[in-house]
């Protein structure tokens, strides 16, 4: 069972999701079923986390089954530390989301749950696929449940947002497919491992890099490709936004570290300056844009973009780092920073979206200008909100600080300007997060916001768990760091042997 735990992780939720479509009678049973499935998946992922041997650098729990040998496509699964951690993030977020969902009153509850279960399984598939086409298939298929979630249960402009989301990401990913096909046409294999052994000419690598990077840059999203995210977030239902921010953006980042950097390092290194600049723009400019948003979800969406800017910055600094100091230690630092940022942002943004969502459930508004002084009405929520806002602006002791510190450190080693711009996030993020807090949480309670109940037990638990994780990750980061270390070393070696 432990040998094909990955298949179990992928297919259990998917099958459960399809099964749940045919049952629509009793909500309570639906809740219990949904939560228990997610719980089982979560427990499985804990098993994965424990049984993974962090001292070996190669892929583990490998399953390699003939699927379409005539097209060299194999059902090839396997995980290294980053996949394991992302799968863990995924399962825990989906568990919390399923808990949160059971508090809502929904139309078409069974379809809602089934889309989430499908998304859960498919995401795990994305993180554990080692065959490019398999990855691509999961990557694409993941769009469908999200599309339905946003489109069916979304807000007023849901159709616009969902179509934009679907078509935009599809546009990106289809170039990815071409890139994969091209690689396959020269090495006649789709396995990631053989991707790592390829050696293309620099021009080829540049083109491949562009094709793949656009796909993932749209997914993350990076600066010029980011406009779908705020719309999607604003229109999506709360749980949808949570999944979108906590998981789907990570898929893009994962794509970078798994399929772009080690496969076409030369192309990446010759074009990295653009991506560094874009990341810095994302950090500074998008952060600035976030400040005056009046819609809380939009604000958090923009802040997510600027945080993901840190991730991409960490990814693309590595080549300059390598040029400066021909050691791979700095590269590992930078990559660890990015990975840590990915994971931490997963929790922080999820928590913030849950807070906003619960405010929305109570007051039916996400507009900052309609809210004020919630602290008087619902203290528990408000304190959690304040905490997560502080976490969002990278307060030391919370998880977000670690990643930012490491990435600023790495960026300083490449150039002072990068470090300066990157660290300006300390100010900008503080401005948008705390100004939000000032306007929404503090102050006198606005008239008409009375008679709303504070967090119920379930919501308290969810928020508390998230807060706890964020604190632990902030106070004792070394666990994850050492967990990822071997893998990142390995990836770094894969990169630098080619440049």
């Amino acid at each position, binding site marked *: 069972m432990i040998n094909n735990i990955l298949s179990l992780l992928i297919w259990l939720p998917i099958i459960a999701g399809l099964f749940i479509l045919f049952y629509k009678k009793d909500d309570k049973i639906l809740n219990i079923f949904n939560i228990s499935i997610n719980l089982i998946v979560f427990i499985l992922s804990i098993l994965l986390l424990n049984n993974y041997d962090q001292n070996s650098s190669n892929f583990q729990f490998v399953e390699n089954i003939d*699927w379409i040998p005539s*097209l060299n496509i194999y059902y090839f699964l396997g995980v290294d530390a980053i996949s394991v951690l992302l799968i863990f993030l995924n399962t825990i977020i989906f568990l919390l989301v399923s808990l949160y969902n059971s508090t809502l009153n929904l139309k078409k509850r069974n379809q809602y749950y089934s889309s989430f279960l499908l998304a859960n399984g498919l995401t795990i598939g994305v993180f554990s696929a080692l065959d490019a086409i398999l990855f691509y298939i999961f990557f694409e298929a993941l769009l469908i449940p999200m599309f339905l979630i946003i489109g069916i249960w979304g807000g007023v402009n849901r*159709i616009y947002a*969902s179509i934009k989301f679907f078509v935009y990401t599809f546009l990106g990913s289809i*170039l990815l*497919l071409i890139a994969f*096909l091209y690689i*396959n046409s020269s090495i006649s294999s789709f396995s990631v491992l053989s991707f790592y052994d390829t050696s293309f000419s620099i021009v080829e690598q540049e083109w491949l890099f562009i094709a793949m990077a656009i796909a993932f840059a749209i997914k993350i999203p990076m600066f010029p490709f980011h406009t779908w995210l705020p719309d999607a977030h604003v229109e999506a239902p709360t749980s949808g936004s949570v999944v979108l921010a906590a998981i789907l953006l990570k898929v893009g980042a994962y794509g970078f570290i798994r399929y772009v950097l080690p496969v076409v390092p030369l192309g990446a290194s010759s074009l990295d300056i653009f991506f560094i600049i874009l990341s810095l723009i994302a950090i500074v400019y998008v952060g600035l844009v976030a400040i005056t948003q009046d819609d809380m979800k939009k604000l958090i969406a923009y802040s997510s973009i600027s945080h993901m800017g840190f991730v991409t910055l960490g990814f693309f600094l590595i080549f300059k780092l390598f040029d400066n100091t021909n050691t791979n230690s700095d590269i590992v630092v930078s990559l660890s920073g990015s990975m840590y940022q990915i994971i931490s942002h997963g929790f922080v943004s999820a928590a913030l979206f849950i807070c906003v969502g619960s405010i929305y459930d109570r007051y039916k508004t996400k507009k900052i200008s309609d809210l004020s002084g919630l602290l008087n009405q619902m203290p528990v929520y408000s304190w959690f909100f304040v905490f997560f806002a502080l976490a969002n602006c990278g307060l030391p002791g919370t998880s977000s600080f670690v990643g930012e510190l490491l990435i600023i450190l790495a960026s300083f080693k490449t150039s002072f300007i990068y470090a300066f711009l990157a660290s300006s996030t300390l100010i900008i993020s503080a401005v948008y997060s705390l100004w939000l807090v000032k306007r929404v949480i503090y102050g006198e309670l606005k008239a008409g916001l009375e008679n709303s109940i504070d967090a119920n037990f379930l919501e308290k638990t969810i928020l508390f768990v998230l807060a706890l994780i964020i604190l632990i990750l902030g106070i004792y980061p070394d666990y994850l760091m050492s967990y990822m270390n071997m893998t990142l070393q390995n990836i770094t070696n894969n990169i630098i042997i080619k440049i």
Partner: protein
Amino acid sequence: MTFNNAFLSLSNFIPEIFLFSMAMVVLLIGITNPLKKYVVSLTIGSTLIALFLCFWGYTEETVFMFNTSLIKDNATEFFKILCYGIFLIQIIVSQKYLKNKNLISGEFYSLLIFALIGCLIIISSNNLIVLFLGIELSSLSLYSLIALNRTSLISGEAAIKYFVLSIIASALILFGFSYLYGITNSLVINEISTYLLSNEISNLYLFSYILIFIGVAFKFAVAPFHMWLPDVYEGAPLPITNFIASIPKIAFFVFAYRFLNDNQILFEDNFSKFILYLGIFSIFIGNMYALAQKKIMRMLAYSGVANSGFIFLAIFTSIDFNFSVAAFYVITYTITTVSAISIITFISSNKFDLVYIKDFKGLSSKSGLVSILFMITLLSTAGIPLTIGFYAKYLVLDALVNQNMIIIAVIVVLFTVIGLYYYLRVIWFMFFETGFNSLIKVNGIYYLAVLSIIPFSIIAIFLFPEFAFNYLFSILA
């Protein structure tokens, strides 16, 4: 000897002969009032029997019948069986619709069977005369089927348009035939192909092939020879549309296969480029027109144009593959279209005709199953993973990339993104909007079961495609 040959041929030709006679029977009992109500069941039954006979008479080795005017091998049998299956689904699903439009009559079904036989003959013909007869048999019966709904204006119009244009097409094909005949002094297709082994390609040969394939392009509705398609889709009764969309496509694919398989012309640059650019142009036109359509059938028609473009690309890629890519694409496209049109037929087999895309509003709240089936079908047409449509597009792209035509691959892919948009539009009307027309009733477990055959097979084949690829590869090798 001759007798022997004739006997063998007849024995191998039993299914068609049976079907033919049954068509007559259907026609007869159609006019006799008491038996009229058995028409449908008789048609279904006879098709089933023919299908069974086809299985029964299945043989591995290639057989030439009626001294090489007909051929029977794995490919023909496979495609015939496919045609039978599709035909069955269509007539089963269309009953209610026809009853409502009171089109159920002996001549309707017999004509339908004749059209089918025409296509079967095209599939199995190895001689230009027989081929021509097959084409004409199917098209003649289709003209009259389209016009059969005398009350409606548009079906007459559709009929006349289809009539005139497809005769031009047949004439072009015939013209090509005549030149081929002139060059090779033979009406046997594989002789025509083997002619090139001894002599090199003359311009006349090239021209005749281009004439023939313009005809084929017309039958596939590849732009710029596509204009008849949307009108026919809109004008004809849905079951007929369903037929026209599917079975002739298969037949003409086999036609193309016969003419191009191990034929040097495919390596002639002018010819292959002709196919390629026709395909790209068709993808462009199809998607661009489909984007602005308001009526579901026209949209499907134009998406069909785009897909035919893909089919031509697939045929083009057969230069260094064999035809399995093209065959896979054709099959995929055909069954998805059949599924789509069948679902539309099923939905609009009530008082209310489902004409506009916006009529799909809130279908999901009315019947989740139907809407999910339709979604699967559309996604397959768009080529999203989890459906075989993905493999179809994937194989074409793969072939293009392997021939280092990356730019073309990218262009094509970008058009598929446009395509995705108008499929999503239907999906959003089904799932995201509310307020479904109350006249429409979607029920009948029997119909739903039939309808769900194709979508489920779409998913199933996606999950386990290997055997399908291998099989096609083997039969078309």
